[in-house]
């Protein structure tokens, strides 16, 4: 997993995140004067999300038009996830626009987009009540798997969860494959551990086992985000899985 926070162009905040082969670039503009006057609210900022899937992001080159329902759904999901987190009430009659560009896809599109959006919003200096971290968790017979790639995603039932690590609450749950309720509950237990691990990777009360280690490892990004915001100066992250490039 790599994170690149180099400022690009005129964007107020931008982030490129890779989860394995999945690569997502997010640019945040705003708060600024709203383009769509008719859509503005007098008491809070308008959040708009646009998603673009690059034709070269998959093996077979396919052009998707912007009206594609799958893209619109992805945009709507990101928008609804961040609307309650961004302190929109601070910027009445303005707009915060988020542009998500999917550069490469290999599973976990939604979690990568959400993580990148959180990073971009933080770099843009937009006040958030909490940061949002997301991950997919799959279950193969009884073995849990984290952060699935495309091949795994096609065959294994999986659940995408976006959580607010500090409160431990879930803002987004998405599952699209058939799975028995009892097994979902098992998956839920893993996810709960995952959220707790994300909230505090040093929590000793979390049961120590191989899985928790993996979760902590993967979700160090959550704590990393936090570290990044509080101590941008030091910037020594000793997680071998995550590399961070900061802007000038």
């Amino acid at each position, binding site marked *: 997993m790599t994170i690149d926070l180099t400022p690009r162009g005129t964007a107020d905040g931008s982030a490129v995140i890779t989860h394995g082969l999945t690569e997502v670039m997010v640019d945040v503009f705003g708060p600024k004067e709203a383009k769509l006057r008719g859509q503005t609210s007098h008491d809070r900022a308008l959040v708009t999300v646009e998603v673009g899937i690059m034709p070269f992001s998959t093996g077979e080159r396919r052009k998707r038009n912007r009206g594609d329902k799958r893209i619109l*759904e992805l945009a709507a999901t990101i928008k609804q996830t961040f609307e309650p987190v961004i302190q929109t009430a601070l910027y009445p009659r303005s707009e915060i626009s988020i542009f998500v560009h999917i550069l490469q896809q290999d599973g976990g599109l939604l979690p990568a987009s959400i993580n990148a959006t959180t990073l971009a919003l933080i770099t843009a200096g937009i006040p958030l009540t909490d940061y949002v971290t997301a991950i997919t968790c799959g279950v193969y017979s009884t073995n849990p798997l984290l952060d699935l790639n495309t091949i795994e995603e096609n065959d294994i039932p999986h659940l995408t969860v976006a959580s607010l690590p500090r409160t431990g609450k879930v803002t987004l749950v998405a599952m699209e494959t058939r799975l028995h309720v009892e097994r*979902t509950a098992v998956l839920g237990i893993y996810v709960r551990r995952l959220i707790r691990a994300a909230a505090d990777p040093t929590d000793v009360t979390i049961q120590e086992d191989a899985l928790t280690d993996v979760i902590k490892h993967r979700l160090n990004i959550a704590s990393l985000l936090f570290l990044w915001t509080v101590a941008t100066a030091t910037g020594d992250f000793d997680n071998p899985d995550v590399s961070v490039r900061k802007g000038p």
Partner: protein
Amino acid sequence: MPRPPSPSIPEKEFLFTSLKESLRLDGRQPLEMRAPILTFGPDLGWVECAFGKTRVLAQLDAKMVKPTPERPLEGLITIHSEISPMASSEYEPGRPSDEEVNMTRMLDKILRRSDAIDKESLCVLAGQRVWHLRLTIHCLADAGNLLDCACLAGIVAFKHFRRPEVEVVGEEVIVHHPSERAPVPLSMHHTPFCFTFAYFPDQDTPPVLDPSYLEQRISAGLISVALNAQKELCVLQKAGGVPLTQEQVLAVIDIAVNEAVKLDWLVTQRLAEDWKGRKVEVR
């Protein structure tokens, strides 16, 4: 582009206060659904479903086409769902609204991607001829929870539909008219049902099942659970909105499990009743 007026402040406050005391405007319990009313039309695969004043019409037809080269052994299923201004003055023709995108995607996931219909059974002649099922969802009136209503109408339409019997002789396909040979029902793996719950900004207010129009408008988040009577979850969707705890999500699934069993029974009953009243003439 005029935006729909939001409910007035007194209206909102009244509703929030009553919901906090577990009272709903239409006299339902928080976790009580409106009883679905299923009406079958003259044709097979013509189903009208009503949840109170929310009404959706689903229509299914089948035609024979050439399969896609990638999947020569599978039939095709397409779902057309468009929310026209007929449903409510809020919807405009043209650019799809967020509600429409959400509904289309959810129907696609619940009815098509969850493998409810055995697509291989729709194959007539490999690489040459397959059935193309086209489900059209007409939203007639929106009084809240259009998605669940549309989903129920869609799945019942699949169960109600019967396709003409076909016979393959060598390379030739003979389609028998329904009056010659009795049409055959579609082969289905399972019947998923969708349940939508609405959450409110105040954490003490209990969630409500099957939100009415006003409840949906003032809600702070929806969670949709699609599952079948065999307790298999097909789709779980909570796109943003108010954050919930893990327990709250699992509690919602538990409620949906019980509702799915009840709804499955109701659908089976209604289909059996309708089938009894139908005369299929076979010469």
